[in-house]
């Protein structure tokens, strides 16, 4: 397993490097540079040139890239011209919020998806399966932002069960129980909105895996041993069907990033996705670049995580 993990890590490194080059190049293509936000527009051309020289903006691209990368590794992405604060500091606050939102969403995705997928696969073609499959079709057809808007309107505004924005009640002391409860309360509706739509893939995938595994020869072997149906499902069918789902766990991260971008916007939740859209609209490019890089690395790490999880749960990979 260690061999596999190390090899897999070695593959990820060049992926991340390539990603950083692409992002650096894209950043260079964007209008304006680090200077634009810093200086007084009325400054003389010579002074401007001097400052460009000082900031290394006249160096060949690979030197600039190296400097940029060195900064990025240390968490230095420059300054946000809109917030007038370090990008890293700004992004960090948002990441923490998005992390909590994602975590709770993942919890709901599996808490909803696993039982539904299992029931649907086990009783396929029965009424209960048709109902669940019906739900997954609706889930696939419903854009997440529409679903988010509707649930915000119904449960937030009409029924008033949930707060309609922010990540915590203002004025609460961090660390207190009330603070944590308030955070959870703010998380609940957006994460349920993400999960109810985001889980349908898991449900369908698990369903078809179970239907597939049910007809495998080793299930006949288990039955021929005299194993009762419950045991056949628990010991043989589920374990073999959940395997690919476990492997998908890492990719779920990518899925979440997509989900949170819309949902944070709709619920005015101060997370990364929300910041991302704001920053694009405000042309705050140092923030955009940092976010794209972080998201990209997140996706690569997610895929890495998937493969490592798979190698742990599947002995066929574990040995090799």
């Amino acid at each position: 397993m260690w061999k596999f993990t190390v090899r897999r890590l070695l593959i990820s490194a060049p992926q991340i490097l390539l990603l950083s080059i692409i992002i650096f190049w894209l950043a260079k293509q964007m209008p304006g540079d680090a200077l634009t936000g810093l200086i007084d527009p009325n400054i003389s051309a010579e002074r401007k040139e001097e400052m460009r020289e000082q900031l290394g903006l006249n160096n060949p691209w690979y030197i600039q890239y190296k400097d940029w990368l060195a900064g990025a590794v240390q968490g230095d992405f420059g300054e946000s011209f809109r917030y007038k604060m370090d990008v890293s500091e700004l992004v960090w606050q948002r990441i923490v919020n998005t992390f909590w939102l994602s975590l709770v969403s993942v919890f709901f995705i599996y808490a909803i998806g696993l039982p539904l997928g299992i029931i649907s696969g086990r009783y396929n073609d029965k009424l209960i399966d048709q109902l669940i499959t019906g739900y997954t079709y609706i889930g696939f057809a419903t854009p997440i932002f529409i679903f988010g808007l509707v649930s915000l309107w119904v449960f937030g505004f009409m029924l008033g069960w949930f707060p309609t924005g922010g990540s915590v009640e203002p004025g609460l002391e961090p660390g207190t129980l009330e603070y944590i409860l308030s955070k959870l309360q703010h998380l609940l509706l957006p994460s349920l909105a993400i999960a109810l739509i985001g889980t349908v893939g898991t449900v369908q995938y698990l369903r078809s895996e179970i239907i597939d595994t049910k007809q495998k020869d080793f299930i006949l072997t288990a039955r021929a041993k005299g194993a009762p149906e419950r045991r056949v499902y628990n010991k043989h069918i589920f374990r073999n069907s959940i395997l690919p789902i476990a492997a998908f766990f890492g990719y779920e991260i990518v899925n979440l990033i997509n989900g949170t971008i819309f949902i944070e916007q709709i619920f005015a939740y101060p997370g990364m996705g929300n910041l991302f859209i704001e920053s694009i609209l405000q042309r705050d490019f140092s923030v955009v670049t940092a976010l794209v890089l972080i998201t990209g690395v997140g996706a690569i790490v997610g895929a890495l995580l998937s493969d490592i999880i798979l190698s742990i749960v599947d002995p066929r990979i574990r040995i090799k």
Partner: protein
Amino acid sequence: MSNPLLEIKNLKTSFRIGEEYYAAVDDVSLTVNENEVLAIVGESGSGKSALAFSVMGLHNRAKIEGEILFKGNDIANLPPKKLNKIRGKELSMIFQDPLTALNPLMEVGRQIDEVLFLHNSKLPKAKRKEYIVELLERVEIPRPEHVYNQFPHELSGGMRQRVIIAIAIANQPELLIADEPTTALDVTIQAQILDLIRELKNDLNSGVILITHDLGVVAEMADRVAVMYAGQIVEVADVDMLFNNPQHPYTRSLLSSIPLLEDEQDRLHVIHGIVPSLKNLPREGCRFSARMPWIDDDVHEEHPELHEISPGHFVRCTCYKHFYFPEENKEDQSHDITQS
């Protein structure tokens, strides 16, 4: 005379296709005695597995009619709870493809342990492990302690089939059903596996149903043979009788399609066509008639029955009396094909 171990009476196993049921096993009656190997032969699609699965209760959506008397009790359509008391214990099965018949995510030892645990949960785990290692030795697996903790994909096909056999014999079954146990293996391994099955049968005094389409295997292993075509038994006889004096046109075609090395091979007949699909099986008259169009239509019975032509030798339909191969002359047709 005591009851036979297994007595199948007028078994009919039908599958639903669309709105209708089609019988894949149609009016089959058979017996298997203790310490006896009954071979079932027939081409692909003739219903051999459907028959075996009916006995094991492994069909999940089939309609099963008739009786399957195991030690005198009817086990056809037995509720799962009762069936699970005998499956894996008194009644067990070896499957065709060792590559897919084991759970890929479970250690070999645990897969054998499952069948012990299910039928004998009082036996302590350490004792079970001891016994499993013995079993692995019994099926001639080298380094059993090591194999105990291995996963199926780490073993060769032959080794996996031995594991499956170990599972099947773990509780010393009285009836063992082997559905083409060697088809997926190469020739040298085949012989070893067959030897093993024969030895185990003698040790345990069990009855064995051996399904195969390899007549060489039949000659080597079987005491009696049942030939199946299109869901029906067309001929049953002792193995010597069947090889020396085959009667049904289908049996004769099967036998004469084996190339004999020392022969000139001019008697190698090939039966054209295949077993029709379940939906298109002829349900009236002699089911094999379509594959011997050179034979007069009126030699067949309207409702072909099994005729006992000598003690223990049954043949379906009267057409066997008039059958000849197209290469032969109608005049000098003879029944006793002697296998030189």
